[in-house]
């Protein structure tokens, strides 16, 4: 159980982010926070299953699909749920350790952490883009209909 405690912290931290980003509807706050918790839960469950970057990729895909579904059901922009849900995955730790390696003059460690951080950010970007493009393909019909006066 101890292992999954970070998921609870992720939910609470994402709840705080909802307030910072001015999300006001209680249902939205709840869903955004839960999305953040799910993102870390999936990350933990994938531990040891696949390499780091793949974990981030799969995780982002799950969160993005959830966000798109919430957006469709609630008729709200998907970014709202996506922005808050992705936050626990953003490699803040990687940024810090990269900087620390640079300060201590350890070039090899610096290069490794910098690359790892970039790979994680890249995996998030790829995951988001894959799901967004699929969503756009699936819902294109609506857009064309919407253009008619």
């Amino acid at each position, binding site marked *: 159980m101890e292992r999954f405690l970070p998921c609870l912290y992720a939910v609470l931290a994402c709840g705080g982010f909802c307030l*910072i980003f001015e999300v006001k509807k209680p249902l939205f706050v709840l869903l955004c926070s839960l999305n953040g918790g799910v993102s870390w839960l999936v990350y933990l469950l994938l531990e040891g299953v696949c390499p780091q970057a793949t974990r981030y990729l799969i995780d982002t895909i799950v969160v993005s699909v959830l966000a798109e579904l919430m957006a469709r059901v609630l008729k709200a922009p998907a970014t709202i749920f996506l*922005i808050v849900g992705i936050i626990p995955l*953003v490699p803040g730790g990687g940024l810090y350790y990269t*900087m620390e390696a640079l300060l201590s003059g350890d070039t090899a460690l610096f290069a490794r952490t910098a690359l790892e951080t970039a790979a994680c950010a890249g995996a998030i970007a790829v995951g988001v883009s894959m799901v967004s493009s699929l969503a756009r393909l699936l819902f294109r019909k609506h857009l064309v209909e919407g253009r008619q*006066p």
Partner: protein
Amino acid sequence: MTSDETEQLLDLCCEMGRQLIQNGAEIYRVEESARRILAAYGHAEAEVFAIPSCVILNIRDGQRNYTKSVRIRSSSNDLDKLDRLNDLCRQICRETPPPSEAAGLLETVTNSPSYPACVSFLAHGCVAAFFTLFWGGRASDAAVAFLCGLAVKATVGSMSRLNANVFFTDVCASAFLAFIPTALFCLGLPIRPDRIIIGAIMLLVPGIAITNVMRDVIAGDFLTAITKFAEVMIVAMAIAIGIALPVGAVKALLGGL
């Protein structure tokens, strides 16, 4: 449609675009919203161009061209307004009220109050504290992180009042947030500065830009994506530099954290 009404419609769409961009919408959403509103009012031939700092609109009405552009400087992230603007856009397309009336509706959305400052301060503190716990900090670390979160909010708030640029704001905010735990650590408190700093920088990490960059690329807005990507890199650099100042000073003076 009279030329007066066309002008009003132009104003409405530009203001809608400006508000959408300022509150964290993707660029394709901005362009599409403007295009849909114009189509709903019978201007299917309208040209819309938007990038994060500018919206340009052109309507052709008979023999005349109406063009308006707005320059966008500041941006706040208000996802509630984004949601309500999105709803309003649908409503305008569905009901096509007179442009002046629609502008009134838009104004009520943009003037809706945001959370009071105390809630925002509390939220910053809690986010920093919970992310510190999240990254493996203890309760004492979380308490210090709460203070760091308040410091970030205070710094960002006062810097924006001074109209400082993003880079300088983030350098100052992250230097300030890293200074608190390193100083307390040097005074002999049993805390882990790295966990606290990582927890608190989550507040500054450009989450919206990272998420929206790829959504813009997918929509084909490469110009916007490059702009946003540059923003992400600059903010990341600013955070690294800001944190390096106090941490580096401690390293130089005391030989490591």
